[in-house]
């Protein structure tokens, strides 16, 4: 695939995600009011406890977000949520575990594009995926955060994204990201495709390690996201954001949208991280009342004023993004298609 073709492709494939994300942010009231707590879907459902299958490990972003909403979700659900950590294999382990549930007893929490991307990567590599998007029934999205680019606070070689791009043309610049094939790497690949920028991508074992490497001076730039890099907001400077508008100027030095600064038309959607909850599609189909109950409880918890006040206290309310199950499905589908076509780019930029 030539460079020109790739650029065109990025514009085209991202559009689907962008449209659906936007639609999700604007609309999405498909329920019929709150349930108020407890009460099942026509049978003895829910039991006293359901399992929350976390696709990531203890103490990570999905875990923290789950702990924040857990009490409210349980209240509307009328059942306890017992967390089970099924980290690993690029969220495949957790997704497979939830997909095999037959009775809506497991609720999964994971990230897009990671989970749909795993299916795409397996298909491209010729590995039989253990689940498809048809096996997962989203409940909706919990949160979303745009990709950003951070440099150290005392960095004087480049203080704007334009200066970084220019500097990288003649100098070696290393960019760290959490993992070799994640959305933050994708955001850097997009930048290299859209400009003359030339970076060395250094994949780390998680976001914390990437940030440490940035502050230590091991790498020059960190490809991160708005909220998951908030802990180094005071020690670093954000050069740009991959979003039409900056939702958190306080956490990101009021960084401008990258396209506004560079005059590019990078599509923001593929690098936008969305946390979503889901159940087994087969179970949801077999027990539509149960699915409706769980979905409504999630939506009610998401809208709960006390929950939002809790987040507001720690300046994190801005991360909440609601998308209905159908809209979430469209986001996942788009992410899957995007990653199927992005595979050659990872091969070129990361594996070579």
């Amino acid at each position, binding site marked *: 695939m030539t460079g020109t073709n790739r650029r065109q492709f990025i514009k085209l494939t991202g559009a689907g995600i962008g449209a659906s994300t936007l639609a999700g942010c604007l609309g999405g009231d498909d329920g019929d009011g709150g349930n108020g707590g407890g009460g099942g879907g026509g049978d003895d459902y829910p039991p006293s*406890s359901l*399992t929350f299958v976390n696709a990531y490990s203890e103490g990570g972003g999905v875990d923290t977000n789950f702990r924040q909403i857990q009490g409210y979700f349980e209240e509307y659900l009328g059942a306890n949520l*017992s967390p*089970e950590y099924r980290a690993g294999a690029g969220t495949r382990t957790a997704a497979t575990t939830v997909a095999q549930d037959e009775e809506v007893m497991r609720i999964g929490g994971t990230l897009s594009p990671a989970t749909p991307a795993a299916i795409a990567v397996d298909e491209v590599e010729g590995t039989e995926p253990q689940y498809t998007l048809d096996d997962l029934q989203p409940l909706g999205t919990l949160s979303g955060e745009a990709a950003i680019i951070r440099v150290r606070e005392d960095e004087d070689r480049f203080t704007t994204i334009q200066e970084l791009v220019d500097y990288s043309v003649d100098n070696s610049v290393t960019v760290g990201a959490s993992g070799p094939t994640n959305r933050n790497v994708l955001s850097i690949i997009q930048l290299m495709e859209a400009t003359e920028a030339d970076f060395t991508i250094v994949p780390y074992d998680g976001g914390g390690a990437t940030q440490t490497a940035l502050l230590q001076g091991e790498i020059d730039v960190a490809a991160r996201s708005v909220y998951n890099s908030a802990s180094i907001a005071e020690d670093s400077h954000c050069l740009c954001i991959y979003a039409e508008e900056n939702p958190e100027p306080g956490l990101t030095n009021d960084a401008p949208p990258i396209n506004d600064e560079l005059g590019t038309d990078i599509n923001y959607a593929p690098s936008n991280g969305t946390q979503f909850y889901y159940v087994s599609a087969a179970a949801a189909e077999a027990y539509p009342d149960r699915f409706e109950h769980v979905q409504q409880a999630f939506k009610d918890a998401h809208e709960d004023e006390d929950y939002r006040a809790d987040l507001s206290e720690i300046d994190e309310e801005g991360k909440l993004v609601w998308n209905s199950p159908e809209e979430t499905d469209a986001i996942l589908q788009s992410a899957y298609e995007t990653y199927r076509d992005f595979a050659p780019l990872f091969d070129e930029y990361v*594996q*070579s």
Partner: protein
Amino acid sequence: MTSTEAEEGATNRPARSTSAVALFRLAFPLAGLLLAVLYVENTYGRIRLENLYYPYFVIGVLAVLSLTVFATELRGLADYSGELSFVESVRDALGEWNRSIGFSLVAIGYIWLIEPIGFFIATAIAMVGVMLVGGRRDPLWISISTVIILVFVYVMFVQIMGLRPPSGPLGL
């Protein structure tokens, strides 16, 4: 590292065949080399060679080291004269380690049964099985210790820690 009754009993046994002893002594490095061969077969040509330098370096050193161990072990066996045939040696080893082998079979059955019949039922069966293999025959002790362990596991893991081990058709 560990002295066992089995080892003590082994001192009075006839010497096993050289091939059987060699096979057992070389089992570990042979397993390592087999893994190395599988690794190369699975990755060579599929992944760029420049991304395989480190694992192939490990394999190269392992191969050299394994050869030196083979040489040492085989030199050690040069003066060894076995009294039993290969088949007799295997039979003799099975006799020496009969309880350990019985334990292994119960453990394999146990792990295999956990998902289809549920953790607690499988554990109860396995505990009884291992106690029988270990030579315990009194039903009272077998019952009491099985129940104590099952109750402990249930309270500690399921009730306090909220763990959900696989449950079978009976929900146990």
